[in-house]
């Protein structure tokens, strides 16, 4: 349908949806209500499991099976992106060093990128390791670590980025991270409990070695997410810098 008809249909639908929203919001408990039964129970459970960060406890301990699904979604998305962005029959990959270099960037940008990279790496590592103790976790830390590596690209140097992150290595670590998560879950079965039960000693509150399997699962997820994001971004960057149509110089 043409553009005007599409907008008209949308307007009618949006009006109906807006009315439905307002009616629904009226029926919700008022904003800031004291009554959160699931919240209270999950906080009690997290404290009993000696995990300071209740959200991480929910993600890796109380609802740990959903996180397995989340990890597999990420891996599948990277797989799909790799398949979609592979060189077609009429393209080739140009890995030679006389491929056009990245455009010149300002010195200030370059310096800031190089300075920020070790700081961001440290921050990402901290987020992954302290997932059970303070806000953070495997997913957040993995993304921060991947961002740190790509600050090299932001600082204007695709060649340096390409040499620093060998993609086959990151594909291997991605698989290793996901497998480690599942293996830790299966290890719980070996001790006679259900999949992903928290079977390690819970330790004492706020120590690094507390909350049982949660720090290990966090580390596995951190490695997997870091590798997934690096592989995914490498596919997109190769589209710009490496893949050339047949017949180009």
């Amino acid at each position, binding site marked *: 349908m043409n553009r005007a008809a599409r907008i008209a249909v949308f307007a009618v639908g949006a009006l109906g949806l807006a009315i439905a929203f307002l009616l629904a919001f009226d029926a919700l408990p008022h904003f800031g209500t004291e009554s959160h039964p699931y919240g209270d129970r999950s906080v009690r459970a997290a404290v009993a499991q000696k995990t*300071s960060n*209740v959200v991480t406890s929910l993600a890796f301990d109380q609802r740990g099976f959903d996180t397995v699904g*989340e990890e597999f979604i990420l891996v599948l998305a990277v797989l799909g992106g790799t398949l979609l962005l592979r060189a077609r029959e009429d393209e080739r990959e140009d890995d030679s060093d006389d491929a056009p270099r990245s455009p010149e960037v300002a010195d200030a940008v370059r310096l800031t990128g190089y300075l920020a990279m070790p700081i961001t790496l440290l921050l990402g590592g901290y987020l992954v390791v302290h997932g059970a103790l303070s*806000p953070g976790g495997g997913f957040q830390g993995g993304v921060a670590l991947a961002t740190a590596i790509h600050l090299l690209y932001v600082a204007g140097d695709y060649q340096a980025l390409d040499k620093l992150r060998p993609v086959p290595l990151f594909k291997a670590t991605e698989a290793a991270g996901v497998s480690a998560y599942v293996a830790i879950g299966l290890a719980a079965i070996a001790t006679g409990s259900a999949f992903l039960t928290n079977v390690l000693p819970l330790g004492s509150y*706020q120590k690094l070695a507390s909350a049982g399997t949660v720090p290990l699962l966090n580390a596995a997820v951190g490695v997997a997410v870091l590798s997934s994001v690096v592989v995914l971004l490498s596919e997109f960057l190769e589209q710009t810098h490496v893949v050339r149509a047949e017949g180009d110089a």
Partner: protein
Amino acid sequence: MTVGYVVAGWLFLIGVYGIVVSRDLVHSIVCLSVAQSSTYVLLLAVGYRDHATAPVFGDIPSNPHVVDPVVQSLVFTDIVVSATVTALLLALAVQAKKRAGTRNPDDLSELRG
């Protein structure tokens, strides 16, 4: 009914409006992100508790008065899912531009072999 919920509804409608009137695939993907973020706002608004703090404890709490952490973990999963969807959509947009030569969804209405 408060601003928190109405913001979520508004974000959703404006995101979908952006997709409907979009002339560029990348723009419509970003509008989809906006629509997805409306679900985060709604979930977090539902989980809010007056005068409560974040669900992270420095020491074993005697009387934990915190916001609802269950919806926060739902939003957490939601964000990861939306990031993966965005990545796949962007890959599709790249290939659409290469094969059809255009990023305008109005010009991409016919299937090409």
